[in-house]
C-alpha cells in the first residue's frame, strides 16, 4: 500500500470527524443543513478514494449515491422544508456548546482507544478507518441526544448513517449487499421523515419535539 494512498484516506476520514464536530457546533438550522451537505461530500470523496485504493468498482457506485443523494438532494429538500416550516431562525441546543464539545472529544478518544485496541491484527488502513467511523457514529448519536428539534435529530441520524458507510467502505471486500442496504435505509428514512414532518406540521404546526411531548399516552 503506497504510503501516499494511506495518507489521503487517513486525511479524508479525519476530515469527516472534523466536520462532525462542526455539525455539533452549529446552532442555526440552515447552517446545520449546509454542514451536513459538506459532511456527505467528504464521505463520497473518502469512499471514492477507498474505491480507487481497493480498485473495487462497486464502491464508486456507493460514492456516487452518497454524493448525489446525501450531498445534494436531501439538503435541498430539507432546506425547502425548513424554510416552509419557518423554523430556520430557531436556536436550540441543550446544555450549551462547551460541554457538548468536551463530551465529543471524550467520545473520539474512547473510540480511538477501543478500536485501536480491538483491531490490533487488521491492516493499518482498516484500523484507522474503523476508529474514525466509530467516532463519527458516536458524535452523530451525541448530536441526536443534545438536539431538541426534529429536523436536527434527523440530521444527526443521517450523520450516523454516513459513519456507517465510511466503516463499510473501509472494510475491504465487504460484499455489495451492505452498501445497497445502507443506501436503501437512507432513502426510506428520508421518505418516512418527510411524510412525518408534513403530518406533524399539518397536525400541530410545530416540529419541536418538546411541543410533541404533551401528547404522550397516559398524560391525562
Amino acid at each position, binding site marked *: 500500500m503506497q504510503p501516499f494512498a494511506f495518507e489521503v484516506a487517513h486525511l479524508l476520514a479525519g476530515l469527516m470527524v472534523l466536520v462532525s464536530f462542526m455539525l455539533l457546533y452549529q446552532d442555526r438550522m440552515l447552517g446545520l443543513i449546509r454542514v451536513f451537505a459538506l459532511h456527505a461530500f467528504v464521505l463520497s470523496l473518502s469512499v471514492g478514494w477507498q474505491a480507487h485504493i481497493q480498485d473495487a468498482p462497486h464502491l464508486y457506485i456507493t460514492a456516487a449515491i452518497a454524493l448525489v443523494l446525501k450531498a445534494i438532494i436531501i439538503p435541498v429538500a430539507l432546506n425547502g422544508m425548513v424554510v416552509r416550516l419557518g423554523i430556520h431562525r430557531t436556536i436550540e441546543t*441543550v446544555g450549551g456548546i462547551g460541554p457538548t464539545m468536551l463530551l465529543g472529544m471524550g467520545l473520539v478518544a474512547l473510540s480511538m482507544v*477501543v478500536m485501536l*485496541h480491538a483491531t490490533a491484527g487488521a491492516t493499518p488502513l482498516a484500523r484507522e478507518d474503523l476508529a474514525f467511523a466509530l467516532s463519527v457514529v*458516536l458524535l452523530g*448519536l451525541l448530536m441526536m441526544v443534545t438536539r431538541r428539534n426534529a429536523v436536527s435529530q434527523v440530521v444527526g441520524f443521517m450523520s450516523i448513517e454516513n459513519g456507517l458507510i465510511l466503516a463499510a467502505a473501509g472494510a475491504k471486500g465487504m460484499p455489495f449487499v451492505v452498501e445497497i442496504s445502507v443506501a436503501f435505509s437512507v432513502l426510506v428514512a428520508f421518505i418516512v421523515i418527510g411524510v412525518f414532518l408534513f403530518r406533524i406540521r399539518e397536525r400541530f404546526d410545530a416540529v419541536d*419535539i418538546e411541543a410533541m411531548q404533551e401528547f*404522550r399516552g*397516559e*398524560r391525562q
Partner: protein
Amino acid sequence: MAVAAELWGVAGLLAIAVGAIAAQRLSVGSRLVYLSCLLVSVAILVVACDTFLFGVGAPKRLVLPIGLPWIGAHFAIDSLAAFFLVVVNLGGATTSLFALGFGQHEEAPGRVLPFYAAFLASMNLVVIAADAFTFLFSWELMSLTSWALVMAHHHDPDNRAAGYVYILMASFGTLALLLAFGLLAGPAGAYAFTDMREAAHADWLPGLVLVLALLGAGSKAGVVPLHAWLPLAHPAAPSHVSALLSGVMTKVAVYGFVRIVFDLLGVPQWWWGMLVLVLGGITAVLGVLYALMQHDLKRLLAYHTVENIGIIFIGLGLALAFQANAMSWAAALALTAALFHVLNHSIFKSLLFFGSGAVLNTTGERDMEHLGGLIHRMPQTAFVFLVGCVAISALPPLNGFVSEWLTFQAILLSPDLPQWGLKFAVPAVGALLALSAALAATCFVKAFGVSFLGRPRSLAAERAHETDRWSLTAMFALAALCLIAGILPGLFIDALAPAVTVVVGAHMPVQGSLPWLSIVPIAESRSSYNGLLVFAFIAGSASLAAYVIHKVATGALRRAPPWDCGYPDLSPATQYTASSFAQPIRRVFGDVVFRARETVTMPLPGDPTPARLQVTLRDLVWDVLYVPIGSGVGFAADKLNYLQFLTVRRYLSFVFVALVALLLVVAIWP
C-alpha cells in the same frame, strides 16, 4: 393399585369440575355437582382408609409421562400421605354433604361449582404428589382454585381485596417452596422425592430449606407473621368453602411442611425444633387473642384456625426437637399429638363453619352483634354448634381435649432435652399453649353465648329458621365424630402409628390392648386418660342426679319474666354483646398486643344523641410487616413512573449512556 384408584378419583373430580361449567345453569345443577363430589370423595375416602389402616409395606408408587418432560409425574402413597388423604376426603365428603342443602342459596353457582370440584381434586393431588414439580403444580393449583372461590362473591370490594391479598401471599409461599425444592434438587435438576432423599447436601443447606419451607407452608397454614391473609380470605368465601379452606387446606399445608422437613431433610438440628416451637406458641396465643376481639362470626373462626395451627406446629416443633436428640419414642408421641390434632381440627372447624354458614343463610348476618336467641329458632344447629364449641375449647369428653392432653404429655417429656435453648423455650411454650386453650374456651363461650343464647338483637335473628336436612346430617355426622374421637382415642392413636413410623421411625406403645380402652402415652405409672369412662361418669351422674331429684322432690316448673334484680323488661340491647364480653380480656391483653384504644364520646348535656364508644384495634403484624412492603412497592413504582413520560431525547441518552458504559468496560477490561 391404591395410587391408580386415587388418580382415577382425582380425574373424576376434574371431570365434575368441567361438567359443572355446563351443569350450573340447570336448576338441579348444584345438587347434582355436590352429590357427585360427595360420591367421589367417599370413594377416595374408602380407598384411603384401606391403605391407611391396612396398607402395610413399601409405599405404592406410580409414574405418569405428564409433567416435567424427562422426569414425568411421580405419585406415591405412604401411610403419612394416606392419613392426610383421609383428612382431605373426610372434609370433602362432609362439605359436599352439607353443600347439598346449603348450596341451593348460592346466587352465582357458576362461580362456585366448577372451582369447588377442582379445589378438591388439587388437594388430593398435593397429598399424593411425589416429585417437586407435581407437588408445586397441584399446590399452586389449590391456591388458584381457592382464590377463584374466595372471589365468588366479587361484588363486595372487601372480598376482592381479600382475594388479592390471598393469591399474593399464596404465590409468595409457592415461590419460597420453589426455592426450597431448587436447593434440594441441585443444579442437575433431580426433582423426584426419591432422589432428593438420597442426595447429599452441604451442611448449611437443610437449615435454609427449613426456613424456606416454613415461609412456604407456614404462609399457607397461617403461622403468625404470614397469617394476615387467612382471616380476610376464609370468611370471604361461601361458608362451605370456608370450612374446606380452614379445615382441610391448612392441613394440606401442614402435610407439605411435614413432608419437606421430616421426610426430605433427614436428621434435623435442634434449633429447627426451637424455631418451629416458638413460632407455634406465638401463633397460638396471637391467633386466639385476635379471635377474641372479633365480632364477625366467620372471622372469629378463621382466626381460630390460626390458633389451632399454632398448636399443631407446637407438636411438630417438639417432634423436631426430640428427633434432633435421637429420642424417637418421644418424637413419636409429639408427632402423634400433632397429627391427631390435625384430624380433630379439621372435624370441629368444619362443623363450626357449617354452623356459621347455616346461621348466615337464614339470618343473612355474620355480625354477632345482630344475632342472639337463635337456640330457640334453630335448636338442632345450636346443639351441634355447641358440641363444636366444647370440642374446640379442649374440654374433656370430646376430641379437642385428647390431642391437647397428648401435647401436654409431650411437653412433660422435654426436660431430658440437653440444649439450653430448648430448656427455656419448652416451658414458656407450654404456658402459651395453656393460655391459648383457656382463651379459646372464653372465645367460644362468647361466640356461642352471644349468637345463640340470650334474646334476638335484630329482626333477622328473630325470623331465623332451622336449616335443611342435608346440612344437619353433615353437622351431626361431624359432631358424632368429635364424640367418638374423644371417647375412643386409643383407636385413632393406633391408626396413626404407621404414619408416625414413616416420619419419625418410631411409634407410641400400642393402646389397643389396654383395659377399658384408656390411652397411656408412655408408661402406666406416668399418666393415662380414659375418655370413655369420663364420659360415662359424667352422663351417669348427671342422669342419676336428675332421676333422684325428680323422684324425691317435685318436678314442678313455672315460666315467668326474668328476675334481673327487679329491673323491668328491658330492650335486647342491654344484653352483653361480643365486644362487651371481650372487654375485660381486651383491657388485660389488648393494650400490649393490639394497642387497643377505647374512645367514649359523651353527648353534651341535654343533647338526645346517644353516647358512642369506639374501640380501635391496630393489627400489629399488618402495620409492621404488610403496610411497609406495600408502600415500599408503591414508592418505587411512583419513582420509576417518571420514566414513562420522558422525551425521545432522554430515552436516546439512556441508549447512549449504556453504549458508552459498555465500551468503557471493554476498554478497561484486560
